[in-house]
């Protein structure tokens, strides 16, 4: 289904979700506020992944420095402590940020299933406009409520600017 304005897509998504369809997805050329919620997607695990990455980087970074200066190659410089932790802080901090940022980006891509060079939606020529100024709503045929005739009637009731069947 094609729409011309974000508000139309938002309203149609809400109605489709209320109708009971769950395997649906909405597409927009920019992040539309509330759209993910409208299709029933509320939480992402991404922040947890980033937190885990940050902790890993922090502990790993400090452990590397502690291990190399206190265990692997202890070097006594004028009786100063081997575990001179204040001077390990900058690198620990940098490693925390580095691993957390890597986790954020790679986690986002992995959860989104990217890179994915082929997707059935790309078979619809007009879908190229999803990255320009058109808004799309997709109901997957695998949805338990999906029925070719019923769904078509429902979809036409949403008054879209165009309805396309996706080959796959």
């Amino acid at each position, binding site marked *: 289904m094609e729409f011309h304005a974000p508000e139309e897509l938002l309203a149609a998504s809400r109605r489709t979700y209320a109708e009971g369809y769950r395997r649906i997805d909405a597409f927009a050329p920019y992040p539309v506020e509330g759209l993910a919620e409208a299709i029933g997607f509320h939480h992402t695990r*991404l922040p947890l992944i980033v937190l885990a990455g940050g902790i890993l980087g922090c502990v790993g970074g400090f452990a590397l420095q502690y291990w190399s200066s206190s265990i692997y190659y202890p070097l006594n410089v004028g009786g100063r402590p081997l575990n001179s932790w204040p001077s390990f802080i900058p690198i620990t901090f940098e490693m925390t940020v580095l691993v957390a940022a890597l986790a954020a980006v790679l986690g986002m891509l992995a959860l989104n299933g990217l890179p994915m060079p082929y*997707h059935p939606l790309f078979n619809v020529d007009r879908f190229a406009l999803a990255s320009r100024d058109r808004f799309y709503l997709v109901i997957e045929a695998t949805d338990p409520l999906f029925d070719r005739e019923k769904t078509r009637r429902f979809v036409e009731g949403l008054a879209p600017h165009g309805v396309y069947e996706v080959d796959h």
Partner: protein
Amino acid sequence: MPEKPPESKFAPSPPPVPVLEPGHTFASVGDKISSIVLTGRTPTGWFVGFAIVSLLALMLFYALAVLFTTGIGIWGNNIPVAWAFDIINFVWWIGIGHAGTLISAILLLLRQQWRTSINRFAEAMTLFAVACAGLYPLIHVGRPWVAYWLLPYPNTMSLLPQFRSPLMWDVFAVSTYATVSLMFWFVGLIPDLATLRDRAASKVGRIIYGFLAMGWRGSARHWHRYEVCYLLLAGLATPLVVSVHTVVSFDFAVSLLPGWNATIFPPYFVAGAIYSGFAMVMTLAIPIRKFYGLEDFITTRHLDNMAKVMLATGLIVAYGYMMETFMAWYSGSPAEWFMIMNRMTGPYAPFYWLLIACNVVIPQLLWLGKVRANVLLLWVISLVVNVGMWLERFIIIVVSLHRDYLPSSWGMYRPTIYDWATYIGSIGLFLTLLFLFIRFLPLISIFEMRALVKETEKRGG
């Protein structure tokens, strides 16, 4: 008697210049920005400019070739001035590299909408500046082919780096900064690459942009995760950007040399970095918006705001200079006081006074609204600040080193032709990368501009 409503106490201020000129639609912003990349003819001016800057980049490669085959004796630095152009340029470039992430991350978190049209391009500038910065320590080590020894990795020599050294901190800070900036920039590009993929007329364009866009479809679920990711990256990059120049300043502050060993260094370096970064964004943005007719997107409001940031950070830098001088006197340390006197009246004194003129005196013009509205004048001031910030690093590094505690080891430093060739060549490399970026990637974030279109509509603007 009814009280006056509180609003009326304030005279209605004239509506500010918008961050996006009205009349744009979702399609028009995307088409306008992507047409720079996609539509057939590249302007002749681009080729002329590219020819000049790539020649300069070639000069850098020549200077590096001579360096690698001969050794760092071709440079002017020698004991006592063992750090000179290489480290000056490193600090200068890394400072310039701070504006991009600052604009992208900190202004995103502060919900400053005016950042949208300059962030992409500032991020690219950051990347290229960090690339130029990273070059210098590598060639400075003398044997760049074993520079990877700086990284902790299991090896047959049982060698691990000294993690207590600020120079090691630098390795981690700069490489983390480069990686995170690259990711931040690339994540921001993904939706725009998808736009380019869908709009590209040529097959090659579709394949390359399609490959880079990784199959981005604009799904609501993807957008949701994307926004979370972008926000988290911004949150991570914010302390990072502050930490990087702090660590760079530790290279100096942790030593014992008068003129280096000062606790004011970290904040003063960070402010200086933002100062020079904004100056460089301005230096580049003004000609680009003119050349590509992007005045609708990069409005005078942007230039005005950037000028204000420059003014504020410039004042912090001025405070830094003042405190350095004050502490040298207040500490009662003869070596410190001599260092300040040597700066102001010694053999390099003209550079010090030029620095004060460039960084402290001339930028005060930015207090005047008329100056901030004058695009040409702003451009000149931004160039002056760039020069000033380079001089600052020259003063800190060379002038502190050339006369330390022991008069018998004093000396003078003069850059050689290779110092200059490497420095100017690295500006060439920076601009070459920037020219390629402008030609092949969207220099303004298209999808964020679309969101801005929506906002502009809502306000009835």
